[in-house]
């Protein structure tokens, strides 16, 4: 989010998902697309069927990597040197789109100077990818007219997540692969409405539509609409809250958590637990009694997605209307109702008759959502923002003719080693991710008998060579220990990892992976390095 915002001026997918199937080259990084975004994977299959070339950058041999023409199986956390290597090849082979760089971007000279210092042998030594493969990938990506980059959490959930994203954006700008249909840089969002939550101001420094809290004109507009005086101070990020970065003076005293389960999903769970226990008052609204809800003073039973009307906004900035299919069970209510009731009883009456009325207010106050009235979204596939007014048809791809911030800005970056390198005590690098059958902390999916049958145990994937060396048989119980804690898994031999790397997913409360992970985070986006930590493995006897 922060990475694309500083280079392009807008932190969202530049294209539409449908455009993927017409690309000539797709560069996919840090995404297990078939498992996490099957609807995107479908377009990639279509594109490959039609002759597109697929380049995959991933430390694991995912299904997409097996389909790929080139799989750059880099060492985890070495995206920046790999991309610098690719850009160096592009420079050496005169594949830079000079006209584009000249007319549409800025800060190119520092990038070029950096690239000229890159030693490709060193890149190979750091990343574990051969010079030949780097050069081939660079050539294929740069030469095609319609090349597109897709990336996911494998790129962002690192201490250098923002710089990683900026490097991918740099690669796209260097070769002029932005601003047109079928070309661009597309982050795939983790959930169906993460984009919508960000759009609606679910970030510390912005009000809805990325309007800055610090801007007095913006504040004045919202003050008048809501009849209150808003604070000019940005809020805190989730990790600041749960890991108590704030000064002792503004210690957090109460929290209201909706549909989130930080007791399983946030890093260093001990610390999260301590924070939640130290609160004066904790309110949780969720469908089930999650690990977090179990610690709450008050729990509100919330309605599920199928039990309410409203919109969600997906990766491609598409606002889609969802119809209520069934009534909420028992006393469950939708989150909007709960918030309005709370607000009323706390002395501020919110009197919205329907989600359509709330959407009207969003249209009024949020320029990028200016024309997103419910009646325009019903009976179709929705509209993509920016959509400024009722007559606006929506925007399938961004940065047409000009970047949102004017000129695209190159942000040269150098290698940032993982926050916790392996050593003799903790010799394995643990990668975390998501599996096909479960969603996030399994609050919903683990309650479904068929999904749970498909995947009912926490597995730890290990290369057979490592397992043979440690003399641990396939299927054994193993304990994984990091500097912060340990949890138990079932070992699964897996050829798709490089020796020395381990993989597990974080859906299981029986194996709360985030007791292992670390809270080191990206300096700009504050996204923690979920993807990597150093661990050791022992068989449980």
């Amino acid at each position, binding site marked *: 989010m922060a990475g694309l915002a500083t280079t392009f001026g807008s932190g969202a997918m530049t294209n539409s998902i449908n455009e993927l199937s017409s690309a000539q080259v797709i560069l996919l990084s840090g995404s297990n697309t078939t498992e996490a975004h*099957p609807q995107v994977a479908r377009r990639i299959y279509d594109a490959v069927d039609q002759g597109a070339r697929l380049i995959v950058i991933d430390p694991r041999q995912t299904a997409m990597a097996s389909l790929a023409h080139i799989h750059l199986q880099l060492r985890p956390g070495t995206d920046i040197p790999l991309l610098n290597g690719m850009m160096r090849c592009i420079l050496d082979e005169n594949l830079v789109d000079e006209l584009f760089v000249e007319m549409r971007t800025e800060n190119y000279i520092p990038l070029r100077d950096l690239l000229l210092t890159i030693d490709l042998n060193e890149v190979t030594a750091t990343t574990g990818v051969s010079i030949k493969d780097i050069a081939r990938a660079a050539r294929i990506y740069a030469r095609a007219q319609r090349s597109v980059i897709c990336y996911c959490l494998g790129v962002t959930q690192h201490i250098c997540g923002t710089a990683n994203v900026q490097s991918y954006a740099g690669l796209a700008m260097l070769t002029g692969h932005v601003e047109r249909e079928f070309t661009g840089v597309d982050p795939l969002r983790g959930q169906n409405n993460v984009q919508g939550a960000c759009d609606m101001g679910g970030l510390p420094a912005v009000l809805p539509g990325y309007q800055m809290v610090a801007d007095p004109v913006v504040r004045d507009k919202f003050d008048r609409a809501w009849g209150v005086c808003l604070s000019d101070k940005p809020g805190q990020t989730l990790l600041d809250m749960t890991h108590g970065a704030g000064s002792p003076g503004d210690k957090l005293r109460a929290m209201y958590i909706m549909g989130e389960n930080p007791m399983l999903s946030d890093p260093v769970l001990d610390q999260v637990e301590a924070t939640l226990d130290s609160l004066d008052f904790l309110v949780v609204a969720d469908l089930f009694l999650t690990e977090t809800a179990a610690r709450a003073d008050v729990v509100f039973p919330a309605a599920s997605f199928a039990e309410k009307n409203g919109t969600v906004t997906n990766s491609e900035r598409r606002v889609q209307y969802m119809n209520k299919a069934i009534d909420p069970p028992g006393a469950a209510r939708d989150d909007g109702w709960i918030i309005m009731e709370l607000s009323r009883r706390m002395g501020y009456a919110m009197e919205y008759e329907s989600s359509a009325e709330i959407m009207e207010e969003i249209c009024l106050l949020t320029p990028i959502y200016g024309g997103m009235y419910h009646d325009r979204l019903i009976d179709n596939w929705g509209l993509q923002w920016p959509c400024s007014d009722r007559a606006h048809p929506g925007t399938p791809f961004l940065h047409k003719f000009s970047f949102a911030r004017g000129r695209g800005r190159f942000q040269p970056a150098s290698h940032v080693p993982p926050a916790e390198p392996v050593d003799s005590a903790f010799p394995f690098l643990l990668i975390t991710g998501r599996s096909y059958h479960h969603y996030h902390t399994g609050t919903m999916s683990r309650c479904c008998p068929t999904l749970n049958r498909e995947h009912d145990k926490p597995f730890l994937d290990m290369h057979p060579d490592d397992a043979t060396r440690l003399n641990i048989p396939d299927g054994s119980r193993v304990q994984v220990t990091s500097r912060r804690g340990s949890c138990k898994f079932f070992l699964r031999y897996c050829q798709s990892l490089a020796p020395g790397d381990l993989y597990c997913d974080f859906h299981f409360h029986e194996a709360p992976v985030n007791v292992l992970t670390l809270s080191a985070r990206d300096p700009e986006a504050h996204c923690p390095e979920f993807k990597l930590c150093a661990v050791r493995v022992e068989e449980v006897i």
Partner: protein
Amino acid sequence: MRRKQWILHKDHLLPFLRKLRKSRSLVAPVRNSYGDTMYTEMNDLDNESIELAEQPQNSLKSFFFPQREKLCHYSVDEAVGDSAQAYRFYPSLPESRAVVYFGVRSCDMFAVMYCDTIFLGGRERDVYYDARRRNALFITLACNHPFENCFCNAARTGPYLEMGYDLQFTDLGDRYFVEVDKARGREVVQQWPQFFVPAGDDDRQAHYQAALESRGLFRRQVHVDLAVQLLDQGEEPQALLAELSARCQDCGGCAFICPTCTCFNIVDQPLSDDRGERVRTWDACTFDGFTRMAGNHNSVQIISQRVTKRFYHKLRDDVLRHGRSSCVGCGRCVGMCFGGVDIVRFIDGLCAADDKRSEKREDGHD
């Protein structure tokens, strides 16, 4: 003896359905408020709109074999301990309601007949299915305009039915041509004779003409017979199956949308410490857990054979067991599958490989 045929004027359709509804529930294709057409139980004939120009997205399967069905509930007497005696089971049978299914497409009618052989054809009748099925009346609608993915002509289930229905309606513009097959259909005509006028030669001509025209309107050519024949001859298209399996995204959508996929799983769901429900849920052979055994052994190589069972079952095993393929050609899996692993793709791939081989053979002769 030629069966009696009738004419029902379109103006009289709603009054006719209203009469039927006096002693039965009515299920028909209804367009809902967000534009989807589904077979739906109608509560209000005047304010819900029957949609006969669209293919219903669901089939009738879930009306007789629901996605999730409680078979019984149980209680555990903790005083007895954890032994088998501690459990008491209380059966829960669905009530056997009289339901008229109106506007049923030929393929969907055929699918019901297939499900009958599965649930009622063996030595043991499935009492849950039987209870829902026993008092059903089917009024089918012959397809004058096949939809985009339809291939019932190739699957030999449509577009017009020759048997199996109670009444078959054919749209002749301002009137329906009505054919009677089963006794229950005849009873309906006898019970409300005021709606039905005997069909004349003109009507029969128009009906024949419509049937001929609809056969020419299919947009797909799917060689179901050739695929069945190749599989019967022992063809094992391993490479094609491996390619399709790799692309299968394991969602189970094909089996769930399929009107003739009848596999299920039975699980006990505890509701509290001392009681729970035994439920039957739809299952799919493409799932890993469908064939996985204790110790994580799986007789199916999921990576390369995930879809094998599904296609073989439809096009080979059911032909051997029941004398015909159990794919009814409704095309729903074609629209549903987002990996492009539908049965049409399999059949096309199988036939294309055969074409290539025969070309090679011919080249060899030259």
